[in-house]
Structure formats: structure tokens, C-alpha cells
């Protein structure tokens, strides 16, 4: 896609990301797959959370296989880059790994972060099941680091 050809589409990445948001909201698999193959495609941690909440394991596998890009916005993302031994490109992006999904899972155990009585959405059992499902992408050392970073010691013991 060239800037000359689409003068009003200067923010190409945002355009593709908006398309992804619509495709995900409509759960249109064909469109999701087409958009995810776009060279300008990227995801944010919020998008990972939506994927996890909707239990969209097929898409998660596809994202992990194709190494889509993750836009770094939070401090935690930079810590994860260090854990993954990854590189950040000029657009502040890095390839998505299972570690990113795990980090989102452990950071969003409950529906509401600030209400201890809110419903548990990602229980320890679910996280272990998720890890089991995507085990070929898991690097145990990184997984343990993520759990310890989130102070989920019981979960790390269960994983071991």
C-alpha cells in the first residue's frame, strides 16, 4: 500500500488495527486471518486480552505461528522484551510470543483488577490448560519468570 495512492490513509497501521477490531468484534474468521497477514498488522495487550477472554485458541495459535507484532505501550511490555531476549523495532514493536499471552493472563486473573470479589476469568487451572494447549511455543524458563514477576508462586510450583 503506498502513501501516494491513498493520501487519506496515512495512518496505515491504525487503519489495519481498526479493521482487526471490527473483524474480532464480529468474529469473522476469514477477515481476521486476512488482516493478520497484513504487513502493517499489529496488536496491543488489550487485543491479546480480548483474544484470551473469547478463548480464541485457533487465532492465538495462528498469531504465535506467524509472529505478529505487538505494540509496546506499557512498562511491563519492556520487561517482557528483556525476558524474551527480543528486539524492539523503530515502530516500538516486537514479535508476539506465548510469554506475552501468559503475562496478560496472569495480570487479568479477575474481571476487575481492583475488586477482589469479582469473578475469576483466568484461574490457575485455566492457565495451566492454556499452557498445555500451546506447549510447543512455551519456554519453561520464561514462563517461570513471568509467574514470579506476577507473584504467582503457587502457579509456578504447579507448573513445575
Amino acid at each position, binding site marked *: 500500500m503506498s502513501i501516494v495512492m491513498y493520501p487519506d490513509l496515512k495512518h496505515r497501521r491504525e487503519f489495519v488495527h481498526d479493521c482487526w477490531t471490527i473483524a474480532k468484534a*464480529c468474529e469473522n474468521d476469514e477477515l481476521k486471518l486476512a488482516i493478520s497477514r497484513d504487513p502493517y498488522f499489529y496488536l496491543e495487550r488489550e487485543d491479546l486480552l480480548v483474544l484470551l477472554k473469547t478463548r480464541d485458541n485457533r487465532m492465538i495459535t495462528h498469531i504465535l505461528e506467524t509472529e505478529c507484532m505487538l505494540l509496546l505501550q506499557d512498562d511491563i511490555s519492556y520487561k517482557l522484551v528483556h525476558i524474551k531476549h527480543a528486539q524492539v523495532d523503530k515502530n516500538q514493536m516486537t514479535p508476539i510470543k506465548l510469554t506475552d499471552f501468559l503475562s496478560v493472563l496472569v495480570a487479568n486473573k479477575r474481571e476487575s483488577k481492583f475488586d477482589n470479589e469479582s469473578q475469576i476469568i483466568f484461574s490457575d487451572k485455566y492457565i495451566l490448560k492454556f499452557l498445555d494447549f500451546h506447549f510447543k511455543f512455551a519456554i519453561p524458563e520464561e514462563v517461570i519468570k513471568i509467574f514470579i514477576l506476577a507473584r504467582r508462586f503457587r502457579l509456578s510450583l504447579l507448573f513445575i
Partner: protein
Amino acid sequence: MQQINSFSLTPMNDAIAEKTIEDHKYLLEHVENRCAIAYFAAANRNLSLYSALQKYFNEQQDNQDFQSDRKTPEEEFGSMAYLETTF
């Protein structure tokens, strides 16, 4: 999606693009289809189709604005004035 992808891959000029959008109006009822047409038009470098879609929605938006701007006589002049002019 295949249908949208195939017609976005077809080379076309502005007139054909507008006709294509007109012919596939039924697709534009769903947000996902609108999004898909915009995306595939951009990804397949079909500027005519992208512009035609944009034009179609601008026209729709103008129509909606026009309809929302039109007030009933009661709203425009007040209830008393409306009654006076009517009766």
C-alpha cells in the same frame, strides 16, 4: 469474504467502482462487510473502489445529517405557533 476479495482484485475505474458499490449495496448493511471492502480495497491497491466506498458513505452521512437537521414545525416554531398556523 471471497466475493469481496475477488471484486476488489478486479481492475476498475471510478465509474465501474461506483457501479460495483451500487450493485453490492446489500453487503454494506453489515459493518464487517464494509470493513472488509475498505480493507481489501486498500490491501489490493484498488483506489477506485476505496474512493467509491468513501463517497457512498459520505453521501449516506450527508443524508442522515440532512434528515436529523429537518425539524417538525412544532420543534421549529414552538407549539403555540404550530397550533396557530395549523388551525
